[in-house]
Every structure is written in C-alpha cells, then in structure tokens.
C-alpha cells in the first residue's frame, strides 16, 4: 500500500495484491472514511448509500419485493442443480423425478424447495403488486417500473406454467393440455400458434422439450434482465415511496440513514427468517406427484394449475374466446394502464388513498364477496343462454350477451360511487380495481376448492375423491 510498491524493484507478489484488493488494511475510524469504504462494497451496487428511514417500516412495504428476489435466488439455485438429475424426454422425465425423490441425496428436499418457492413466488409477486397499487406507489415518476413489474409477473406465471409440465405426471400432462388448449381460441392464428408452442397437434414429447427449453433459458434470462432494470429504476426514481398518514397536509420530514447497516441488516434478517420458514415447509410438505402421464385417460376433474383456476372458472361461464382471451386480455391491459390515469401525487404513500377510499375499498370487497358466488350459482343453475337462444352463434349467446349482462351492474356500481360518495378519479379506480380483483379471487377459490368431478359444484368437505 506504499508508494514504493509501484516501482519495479519492490513489486508486490500477486498474492499480496489480491489481499490488498480484498481486505482493507485498517477499518477507517471516522464517519467519512467509513462512507468511502462502503461506497466500494458490493451492497452499494444495488442500494444507494443512504435511504429514507420511513421507507423501511415493515408495515409499509412488507418486504415483498425483497422476498420475491429471495425466492428468485432460491429458484435459480435449486433449478440449476435439479437439471443435473433430469432428462427432458418422455417418459424418462417422470422416472428421473422418481429417482430424484428416492435416490438422490436431499433430492426430494431440493425439488420441494423449488416447487414451493415457485408457487409462493406467484402469491408474493401478486401481493407486491397489490401493495404498490394500494399505496399509489406506481404514480409518476414510477410508471415505467410498474410496467416492468407487471411484465415480470406475467413471465413468472409463464415460468411456473412451463415448469408445471416437467414432472410428466398425470397432473402435469392434463393441466398443460387444458391450459394450452386455450391458445386454439386465439382468432385466426390460434391453431397454428398452438401447434408451434406444443411442437405438434397435442401435448407430447416435443412439448416437454419446448417447455424445458423455455423454462431453463429464455424465460429466466428475460426475468433476470427485467429484474436488474427494476432494481436500478427503484434507485433512479428515488427509492421507495414514503409512507404518509391520512390527513397529513405537510409533506413528511425526510430523515435519511445509511444503508449499511440499517437497511442491509433488516434485509439479511428477513431473508434468513423467510428462508427458514420455506425450508421447514419444504421438509414437511412434499411437492405433488401423480402417476405417469397417460394421454388416453383424462382424470376427472382435469384442472389447470391453481393460479389459472379463476380463468378456468370463467371458461365455465363464457365462450372460450371471451372467457380466456378477451376478458383476461382487457384485465392485463387495464393493469398496465393504471398509472397513466391514476396520477394524484397527493395521496402517494397512503394506504387506500383517503378516508373515503378506505370505505369504498371495504365496500368493493364486501360487494364482490357476495355478488360473485351468487352470479356463479345463477349461471350454473338458472341462466342457460345457449339453450334459450338455440339458433344464435354460441359466441353471441354464450359470450357477448352474458358479458354485457355483467358489464351493466359494473357500470351502475361505478355511477353509484360517484353519485352517493362523490368519489373522484383515484377513488373510482380504487373501487373498480378492488371489486374486480376480489371477484377474480373468489372465482379462483371456487375453482380450486368447490369444483369436483365433471366440474360440478361441491362443498369442499363433500368432495368426492378424484377418479384417475
């Protein structure tokens, strides 16, 4: 570390130079020195040197973004090692899973960790989206990061869906068959697109290879790229939004603390605790595995992966073009566009925007919880559009007409919030979005727990055992 070391006569050995780079000679004693040192450290490639203290409140962000990143890391690591014991060929893939579960050291644990992390990631990513929506944190200048986040959520679902097929058991085979058949309803190019993705007319060995390839290369690569950009944008946009209390007129005081140790210590503790919970769960609850895939026998019921059960429930009530393509497409476009018409900067950082916003959100949840099951029951037992209008095209009788029938009360509800609550734009957006999300959540619950053989409705405690 002295000036002489640069002269040729007294050149340090390579080991000396390596040690100099890795271990500072003495810890700086003053604040300024400490700051200089930490600027060089790896942590500060991700975080700024100082963060606003209030953004670290655990009950503001709930650590959901960080938890998603942790799960991504677990998935990457366990995914890479699982590849060492897996062949993406039918029927070898299934035999390999059996081998991983029975003959590989900690094989079942690694598979369980991968499986549960993947499922948990969908939940956590959706909660992260809800948190950002509820606090209005996507408003200018953070619109772009919202778009990237939603794109990543779609990619996470794609990663999960392609991974679902890989065990090549009955559960995987039929969930993917039902899930990919929806592609055939895309207008004009549906059949062609379906064949391209499946590598043939139906799910088979080519599909397994296609999905494996997407699951381990294309999708993770895209997620990694977007993740890096997402983190960088958080910094560029000035960190997390600051929490704010209701009725707070003055902007909150900005108190900054150093990232090291305040933020990093919290992150590490949280990551460790989360991983411990995940590990215990993965040790106790095995990932599902059924019999080997058999294209001749569909299990009854054949259900899509759980995160698509809301969509599958829609499919029971609408023509597939409406239920599986147009409605979800509109929903995704709506989510993408949210930060462009919900732009009131005054309520950023306040959960549910205002007193009225909170009342409206509770009302939206309540109405959706009541109305959705009633609509499902009505449509199941009373409404039968295609029977009442037998000569009409099913796209009309079973698609556009029921869609119009549910659109009318939605518009009336929106009118009602304006007339009786004098809701402004941000409160109307909050009400409608909360209502639709809750309705979708209820549909998902009905699909997962209340649909039995023949997709008939059952009470969960009366559910007949599935026939295979």
């Amino acid at each position: 570390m002295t000036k002489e070391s640069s002269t040729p006569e007294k050149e340090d050995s390579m080991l000396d130079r390596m040690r100099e780079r890795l271990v500072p000679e003495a810890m700086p004693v003053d604040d300024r020195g400490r700051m200089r040192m930490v600027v060089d450290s790896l942590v500060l490639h991700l975080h700024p040197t100082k963060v606003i203290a209030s953004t670290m409140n655990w009950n503001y962000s709930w650590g959901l973004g960080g938890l998603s990143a942790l799960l991504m890391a677990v998935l990457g690591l366990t995914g890479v090692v699982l590849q060492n014991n897996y062949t993406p060929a039918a029927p070898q893939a299934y035999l390999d899973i059996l081998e991983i579960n029975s003959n590989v050291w900690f094989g079942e644990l690694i598979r369980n960790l991968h499986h549960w992390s993947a499922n948990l990631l969908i939940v956590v990513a959706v909660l992260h989206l809800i948190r950002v929506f509820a606090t209005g944190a996507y408003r200018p200048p953070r619109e772009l990061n919202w778009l990237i986040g939603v794109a990543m959520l779609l990619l996470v679902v794609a990663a999960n869906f392609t991974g679902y097929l890989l065990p090549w058991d009955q559960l995987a085979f039929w969930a993917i068959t039902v899930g990919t058949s929806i592609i055939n309803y895309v207008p004009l190019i549906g059949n062609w697109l379906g064949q391209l993705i499946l590598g043939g007319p139906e799910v088979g060995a080519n599909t397994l290879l296609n999905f494996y390839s997407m699951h381990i290369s294309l999708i993770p690569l895209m997620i990694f790229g977007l993740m890096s950009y997402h983190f960088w944008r958080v910094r560029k946009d000035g960190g997390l939004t600051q929490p704010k209390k209701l009725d707070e007129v003055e902007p909150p005081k900005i108190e900054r603390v150093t990232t090291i140790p305040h933020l990093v210590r919290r992150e590490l503790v949280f990551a460790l605790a989360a991983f411990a919970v995940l590990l215990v769960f993965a040790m106790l609850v095995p990932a599902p595995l059924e019999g080997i895939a058999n294209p001749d026998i569909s299990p009854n019921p054949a259900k899509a992966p759980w995160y698509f059960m809301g969509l599958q429930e829609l499919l029971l009530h609408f023509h597939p073009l409406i239920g599986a393509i147009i409605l979800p497409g509109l929903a995704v476009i709506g989510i993408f566009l949210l930060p462009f018409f919900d732009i009131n900067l005054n309520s950023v950082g306040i959960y549910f925007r205002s007193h009225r916003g909170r009342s409206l959100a509770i009302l939206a949840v309540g109405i959706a919880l009541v109305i959705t099951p009633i609509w499902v029951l009505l449509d199941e037992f009373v409404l039968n559009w295609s029977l009442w209008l037998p000569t009409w095209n099913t796209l009309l009788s079973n698609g556009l007409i029921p869609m119009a029938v549910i659109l009318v009360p939605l518009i009336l509800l929106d009118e009602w919030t304006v007339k009786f609550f004098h809701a402004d734009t941000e409160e109307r957006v909050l009400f409608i979005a909360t209502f639709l999300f809750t309705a979708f959540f209820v549909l998902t619950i009905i699909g997962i727990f209340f649909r039995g053989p023949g997709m008939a409705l059952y009470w969960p405690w009366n559910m007949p055992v599935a026939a295979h």
Partner: protein
Amino acid sequence: MSETTSEHPVTRRDFLKIAWAFFGGLALLETTGIFIAYLQPRLTEGEFGSLINAGLVDDFPPNSVTHITNGRFYIVRLGDGGFLAVYHRCTHLGCTVPWDSTAQKFICPCHNSQFDQQGIVENPPAPRPLDLFGVSIEDGQVKVDTGNLLQRQSFESAQVIYP
C-alpha cells in the same frame, strides 16, 4: 448540404438512410421467418400424424365404437355399416373423451361436454362437434390419415365412408 432542391427531391444522405432501413427491415423479416420455420413441429412416420392402419373392416361390427389408442381416435361404425374416424380430443379444452357405452355417448370428464355416436354436441361447453380424420378402405383394411384433420360444424352424410 442535405437540403432538398427541386432537382433532387431526395438527397444522397436521405436515400442511403432509406436504403439502410429497408434492407435492415428485410433482414429482420428473413431472420424471423427462419426462426419460425425452424420451430415448426416435425412429424415422424408411423406415429400419430401419419397414416394408421386401424384393422380389418370385419373387426368392427355395425353400431360399434372402438378406441384405437395409438392413433388417438375412435372407429365409429354406424348402424348402416358406414365408418367415421373420430378424434378422441374434446373440442372444448383438449381432454380425452371416453365413450360411455351405457349412455351411448361420448362424455368429457373435464367440463361435461357430451357428444352422440357421430360426435355431434349434445351438451356444451364444447363449441363444435368432435373432429374427424380421413378414412380410406383398401383391401378390407380400414386406414386412417391422422395428418388429415377435419373440423366441422355439423354432421353430413358425406363424412361417412362405406366399404
């Protein structure tokens, strides 16, 4: 320098820009085409997707439904002796539809779509009848071309093949 005159409505620089953009776009289209063509599914001889020998005409009594699993279809022999090869895949969401011999119907286990012996929808949500494959009868052998899929909206007598 790059100002246009009445003699030269497009300057040399503009011309080069347009030419580069044009050939760049062309190269992009070609490359996309190559990738899409590369990803097209391949078919293997003798497997599903090719011509499959279902058996002798006399193996199928009139008014019977026989599942040919390696070809993914049913040989339906109607009461009048005519043949249909019905794809066993539900037209709703792709489940394999079993033949229920007591109900004399195809009943899908996934969403309860029901089809009669000719594959015509008796109960939705299936949006159209079960698909057919082309049948040909040579030397008393029933041959089914599983690469030749016929999607239909209704039953017509022209769909039936007689020995």
